[in-house]
Every structure is written in structure tokens, then in C-alpha cells.
């Protein structure tokens, strides 16, 4: 009996050979270059290893060591700061721009659709170089401008300043990503039926109530998608702070993110175990946010169906 079932499933597999053949390249490459490294990273997290001598099993010591390290604690704070402010400002600005372009702009809609996307084409590393040029202490445009306004030449070191480096990273993220979120919102806005707006306007509902009571609730799926995307990117932020601080993390690690901490432990200190432990902390954060996202999406779908 069992054999008969086995034989039938063999037949089924053979009949679906084309299915397995078509997905095989993807899964084979994925297995070798993603699944294996992740499993290996799990192993590394429990070992002390510099890449040359024999790995030494240390249990949870790497995880504990990271938590005790003041720089790691600072990196958590920095990452949360950068994630929160860059997501809030990018999504808020993009939402405002999308609604304004969609509802009120009289001409040049195509221009507005395109222009905010241009910064996204600029690599984060290259955008950071451009930003550095504007904010360098000696002859940077920002100092030139502020010097001209106040009348005394200014040599303020924006990039070396502990207080300013994080807002500059946020500025960089906002500059690059606003257009992307705006496109997502514009697509979402197209899906909202026009007659809802017409009806609301007929009833004399003002612009702000239309925005807050109609547009935002109906745009919730796009908003959730845009926030989760910004969050997954924000938690792993590396390129922007790395290039902006030239790999140092800024004065007193003012802009060291979890991604930069991971990079430094692994590739400058060759402490692969500690670095792997840090990557699992990042993974845990990603899982938490993803689950929250799924719950919200499911709720809003249930709400829409009801």
C-alpha cells in the first residue's frame, strides 16, 4: 500500500518534471550562496574565530559580549534614530507630495512624477560624496552661504560634528528615497475611486478632512508597504553613514549603525563570531518588524472585507 502511494508520487514528480527543472537553477544557486552561508553564520555566532586558527565553541558569549559593548549599544541607538527619522520624514514628505501632485497640480504631472526619482539613481555612496562636498568645513557650500549671511567666514565641521552627522545621514536618505515612496503612493492613489472625492466635495467636506478621513485610510496598504520597505532598509543601513564618515562612524561613533558595527567587527577586527552574532540580532529585529507588518496588513484586509 505504502509502496503504491510512493510509486504514484514518483509518477507525479516525473509528470511535473518541467516544474522542477524550471525552478532548479534558482533554488540551486540560492541553496549554495544563501542557505549555506546563513546556516554557517548560525554556527559562527556560537564560536570565536579569526578565520585562521580553529574555531572555538563559546556558547552565547558572542551574543553577551555584543550587548555589553558600549559601541554596540550606541549603534542600536543610532540605528533606531536613523531608521525612525528617515522613515518618518521620507514617508511623510512623499505622501504629501503624492497627494498634492495627484489632486492639485495643474500642469507638468509627468515632470513631478520623474524629478523626485532622479536622486534614487545616484548610488548611496556617490550621494554621500556629493553631500560631503556641500558640507565640508573648508570651503563647503553650506559654510560659504552661512558665512555670507552672518558676515564672518564659517569653518564649521558639519561632518565631524556629533550633533549634525545623524541629521545629515537622514537628509541623504530622504533625498534619495522620497521619489520612490511617492511613486508607490501615486499608484495607490490611482486605485481610489474618484467618485468618493466628488461625493465628499459635494457635501462640502474640506481638504484636510478629505485627506485624513478618506485618502489616508484608503491608502493604508501602500503606506504599510512603504513603511516596511523603509524599515527593512533602515535597520541594515550601511552605505550612507559609511561613506559620509569615511568608514569611521563619525566622531565618537556618532553615526555607527548596526550594519557598520557588523562590518567593523568582521572585516577590520576579524572577529567573525561576534559579527555573526550581531547579524542575528539584526535578523531578530527584521523578523519582529515583518510580523508586525503582516498583522497590520491582515487586519486592514479584514477591515476592508467587512
Amino acid at each position: 500500500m505504502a509502496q503504491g502511494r510512493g510509486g504514484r508520487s514518483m509518477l507525479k514528480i516525473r509528470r511535473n518534471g518541467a516544474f522542477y527543472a524550471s525552478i532548479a537553477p534558482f533554488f540551486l544557486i540560492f541553496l549554495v550562496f544563501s542557505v549555506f552561508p546563513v546556516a554557517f553564520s548560525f554556527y559562527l555566532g556560537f564560536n570565536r574565530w579569526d578565520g585562521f586558527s580553529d574555531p572555538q565553541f563559546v556558547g552565547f558569549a558572542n551574543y553577551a559580549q555584543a550587548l555589553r559593548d558600549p559601541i554596540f549599544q550606541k549603534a542600536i541607538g543610532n540605528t533606531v534614530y536613523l531608521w525612525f527619522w528617515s522613515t518618518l520624514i521620507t514617508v511623510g514628505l512623499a505622501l504629501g507630495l503624492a497627494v498634492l501632485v495627484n489632486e492639485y497640480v495643474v500642469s507638468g504631472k509627468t515632470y513631478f512624477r520623474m524629478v523626485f526619482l532622479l536622486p534614487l539613481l545616484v548610488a548611496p555612496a556617490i550621494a554621500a560624496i556629493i553631500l560631503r562636498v556641500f558640507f565640508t568645513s573648508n570651503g563647503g557650500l553650506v559654510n560659504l552661504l552661512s558665512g555670507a549671511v552672518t558676515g564672518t567666514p564659517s569653518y564649521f565641521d558639519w561632518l565631524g560634528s556629533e550633533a549634525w552627522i545623524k541629521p545629515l545621514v537622514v537628509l541623504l536618505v530622504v533625498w534619495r528615497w522620497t521619489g520612490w515612496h511617492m511613486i508607490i503612493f501615486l499608484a495607490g492613489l490611482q486605485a481610489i475611486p474618484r467618485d468618493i472625492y466628488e461625493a465628499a466635495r459635494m457635501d462640502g467636506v474640506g481638504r484636510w478632512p478629505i485627506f485624513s478621513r478618506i485618502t489616508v485610510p484608503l491608502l493604508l496598504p501602500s503606506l504599510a508597504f512603504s513603511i516596511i520597505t523603509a524599515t527593512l532598509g533602515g535597520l541594515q543601513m550601511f552605505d550612507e553613514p559609511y561613506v559620509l564618515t569615511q568608514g569611521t562612524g563619525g566622531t565618537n561613533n556618532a553615526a555607527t549603525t548596526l550594519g557598520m558595527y557588523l562590518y567593523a567587527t568582521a572585516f577590520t577586527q576579524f572577529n567573525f563570531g561576534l559579527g555573526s552574532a550581531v547579524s542575528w540580532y539584526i535578523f531578530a529585529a527584521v523578523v519582529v518588524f515583518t510580523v508586525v507588518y503582516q498583522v497590520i496588513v491582515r487586519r486592514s484586509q479584514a477591515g476592508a472585507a467587512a
Partner: protein
Amino acid sequence: MRKLLANRERRFNLLVTVVLALVSLLFIVPLYWTTVFATRTLSEVFQFPPPLWYGGNIVQNYFNIANVFPPFRPIWNSLVVAVPKTAGLVLVSALAGYGFARYTRAPGHRFLLVMTFATLFFPPSLALIPFFLQMSWFGWLNTFWPLIVPALASGFGVVWMYTYIGSTIPRELYEAAEMDGAKGLSTFFFVVLPIIRPGLAALAVWTLISTWNDFQLPLVVLAEGSQFTVPLALTMLSTTHYSDMPAVMLATLMGLVPVFVLFALLSRQFIAGLTSGAVK
């Protein structure tokens, strides 16, 4: 009364348009200034007020870059990485997307599809360290292989092509192809591929641009300056020769040109690609 309201509305709309136009300038001014500075001399750049229009020093700036590295070398390196990777990624993704879209009753279909969706939430940083070690065992460090081969398996690409094929190809087409005696893979190459060309183009543009902009992975696996891709080479130049701002700006500009040309040619596909992730 109605006319008055319409007038007020029109004035509000005009105001919004003007304000938005000003805001949009803030977004492109840095790019514009990059192109202006690339054509100026060092002393002109530091003047106040800063130059607003192009100067005549672009050739000299070019030679200043050439003193540090061959100016077109990083662009060539980026092309050598991005083009084969994009071609392979699009093909592998389309093939898997086709498998998932067509053989919905195959054993394991649902499980494998869910796994593929799950990879979208998978943080790349989790694999960074072991991936580096793996590349060193393969003897692939300081080559372009780590940037091309592993990247061919993209969960994002597969999900994209699965959604695209599912929504563009009717099931009857598979049945018709089967009637004509076409096997699974020949159906893919001769029937499906020609139809999904717009979807392939969208995925290709998105992959090309994001590969061009990749920084962390090349930083980890490439050590030789002669192999640096555009973002790496520019970062190096801006650290070692940051005082020569016009040269840095010209090199930056050169590294941006290919992406902007691509965008100008294929912006519709690019935008289609952006929104495809949001529409489920």
C-alpha cells in the same frame, strides 16, 4: 457663488504647483551643482557666490582624475559586473516565475512558493560574513564572480516574474501549446518569453541600476583598486583626493552618466518596476 469657489480653487491649485516646483528644485540642485563644479577650477569652486553656470576647466579636471586612475576603468568594471548579472538574473527569475505560474498543482508548489516569498524579508547582512569566507574558499576574492553568480538567484526577481507571468499569460495558452506538442521548456522559450518582454525589461532596468549602485558587497570582496566598481573607485578618490573637488565631481558625473542615460531611455519600465512590488 459657484464661480467664486472655482476661482479660489484654481488659485489654490496654482499655488500648490508653484510650491512643488520650488521643492523639486531642492531635489535636483545638488545634481546640477555637481555638473557645474565638474567644469570649474578649484579656486572658482571656493568663490562666493559659488558659480551657477558652467566653466571651461573640464579637460584639466579629466587629466587630474587620470593621474589617479584610468577614468573609464571603474565604468568598465561596473559594466562587466552588471550586464552578465542582469542577463542571468532575468533569465533565472523568468524561468522560475514561469514554473510557479504554470505548474500550480505540482507537489511542493505551495511550500516552495512561500519559501520564495519569505526570502524577500531576508536581511542580506545575515549572510555577509559567511559569504565572504565562502568566497575565499572558492578562491573568488578579488574577482567579479562573487558579484555575479550568487546574485543570479533573486527571490525578488522570481516573485516579480511569477506575478507578471500569472497576470499576463492565460492558462489556455499553455493548453494550446501542449496540444501543439510543445514541452514545458520549449513553451517557455518560444511562447512565454516573447510575450513577457516588457516584464523582462522592467526587471532588467531595475537590476542594472541597483547593481550599478551596489557598495557593500564590492567593498567586501574586491581589494585591488584596478577592479573597483564605480561607487568604490569614487569613494577612494574622494578620500585620497578630496581637496581636488572639481576632479571628484567630474568623476562622479562620469559614473552617473550611464545610469541616467539608461533611465532616460527606459524610465517607463523603471517606474513600472517600482510599483510592481506594491501591487499584489
